[in-house]
């Protein structure tokens, strides 16, 4: 008897970190399954998080599959479910069902240089790939991160980024100058053009607000990246997470099931309705 795909498994929140406070609050949650019957995931996959009484929200799993002790989710407070999550405390129970989606084809990228390009909360969906590549550094080429946020306060994983700088190239940016800020000032796509990542034997992985993704792809094309060297992960309003409720489609694809990871070569063939 197959388990019911709509019934979430219970998980306990074991750790909460406030990444960003204020109106655009972001918190990182770590969860463990209560009954030990969890699941393992691939980089880029997502899970439906349940707050019983409020609803469900599809969130990228930002921890690497190599981490077995917990699943990590970084969540921007946006509406009913995410606001309820933000009010939860360590020890509270949530429901999790998944993993959903197609994941990044990391096996195909061994030996290649990887350039991660993120904006705001967009760093979270690609964090799992970055952490995995870092843990298996010898299997990949050069690792670079180009990441920006609106202000220095909006940067996520602040401590992790400080650590990261010791292990790989990290270029940060904020939109508007601040007194203590010494790195790039401007939008992420502009930073990409400024740092000029080399396309040879390189894969670029980007995620952020839709408008940022659009301009990053353009910047990468200007830098002579081929369409199949550019990867992104898209999002859409979701309810079932398994390609049945009809809501999240881009053309004939359901983002929850056939996506959310796409190369630009694949994504440009779909109707640009997302």
């Amino acid at each position, binding site marked *: 008897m197959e388990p019911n795909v709509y019934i979430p498994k219970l998980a306990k929140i074991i750790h909460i970190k406030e990444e960003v406070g204020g109106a655009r609050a972001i918190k990182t949650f770590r969860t463990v399954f209560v009954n030990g019957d969890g699941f393992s995931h691939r980089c880029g996959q997502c899970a439906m998080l349940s707050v019983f009484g409020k609803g469900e929200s599809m969130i990228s799993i930002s921890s690497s599959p190599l981490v077995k002790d917990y699943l990590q989710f970084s969540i921007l407070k946006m*509406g*009913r479910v995410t606001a309820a999550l933000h009010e939860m405390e360590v020890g509270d129970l949530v429901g999790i069902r998944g993993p959903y989606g197609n994941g990044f084809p990391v096996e195909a990228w061994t030996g290649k240089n990887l350039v991660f390009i993120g904006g705001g909360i967009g760093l979270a969906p690609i964090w799992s790939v970055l952490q995995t590549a870092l843990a298996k550094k010898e299997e990949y080429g050069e690792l670079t991160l180009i990441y920006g946020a609106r202000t220095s306060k909006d940067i996520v994983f602040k401590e992790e980024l400080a650590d990261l700088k010791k292990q790989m190239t990290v270029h940060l940016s904020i939109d508007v100058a601040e007194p203590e800020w010494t790195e790039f000032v401007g939008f992420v796509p502009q930073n990409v053009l400024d740092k000029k990542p080399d396309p040879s034997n390189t894969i670029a992985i980007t995620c952020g607000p839709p408008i940022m993704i659009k301009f990053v792809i353009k910047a990468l094309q200007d830098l002579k990246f081929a369409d199949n060297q550019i990867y992104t992960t898209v999002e859409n309003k979701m309810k079932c997470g398994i390609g049945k409720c009809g809501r999240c489609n881009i053309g004939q694809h359901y983002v929850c099931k056939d996506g959310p990871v796409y190369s630009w070569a694949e994504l440009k063939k779909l109707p640009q309705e997302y």
Partner: protein
Amino acid sequence: MANFEDLKEEARKLLREGKIKYLIGYGTGGNGWQAIPVFIKTPEDVEKLVWDPTCVHNLARFLVDEKRRKARQKQPDKRPVGVVVKGCDSRAIVVLLQEKFIDRQDIYVLGVSCEKAGVIDDHKLARKLGGKKPKKIELAADRFLITTADGKVEFPVEELLAERCLECQANFPVLYDILAGEKTRKAVDKPFGSVEKIEALGQEERWRFWKEQLDKCIRCYACRSVCPMCYCDECVVDSINLAVTADTTAEEKAHKVKWIQRSAESSENFVYHLVRAIHLAGRCIDCGECERACPLDIPLRFLNKKLEKEAKELFGYEVGFDPAQPPLISSFKDDDPGDFIR
């Protein structure tokens, strides 16, 4: 007195001279005999306009779409739109003007009079024709002439008229820039006759009646979608914020009250329909579209008509005749009844 051909000529002139952006009128639909709403953009297309007893739609409804369309455009075309209206539809326009939802200069009103008749009720027609398919429906004085594959049949208008037309006290437009047809007042014996029949049922019977009817509802919201007065950007049934801007906080969205669940259960269906009726008190002009659109034939008109009756009896308020009259719920008179205040 102008007739429908004069009205069409006026429409051609307005479009030729660019005085209106486009015209919302009735055209003949796919099956060749039933009218549907059409959007006329060129003088040549005016030929498509028809006026016959199947013109049931309240075209004032599309003025809401026009307003939304303009709101989305960076440089909207500010010319008026033309709209063909019957008596009932014109009263909808009056309510929209009373509520300042539209301006008089946004519209050019082409009125048509139902004279002593009105529009046909689909179900009554189906029953009378016993399965025969109509090909054309015309009005001749006090009879409807129906052409079928087997020839012509005729019926006195009262046998086929929609119930609301039998109770109608505004069979010609109260507001217009040009009018086709006579301004003949129809004598109406019992303007609230259909409601009185339900009122006469005992409380138990009435409860059973409404429970049976509202249990049929599948919450398709056709009743709400077809109503010109249901123009709220965010309706009480919407459990999520629809009018979301960059400034809407997560807390606002999180704390939005879910008044009604999406489930088509008895309790939710009752709340939806009763709340909608109350929100239409003093605003519904009985165009009957909600009931006509309902695929499960729920007699929604009764709910709205009941409140229209109360507005008249308690407050002397008549809906949709005077654009300068304030809306019922947002005004009061010193001599309003107060006996319910203890």
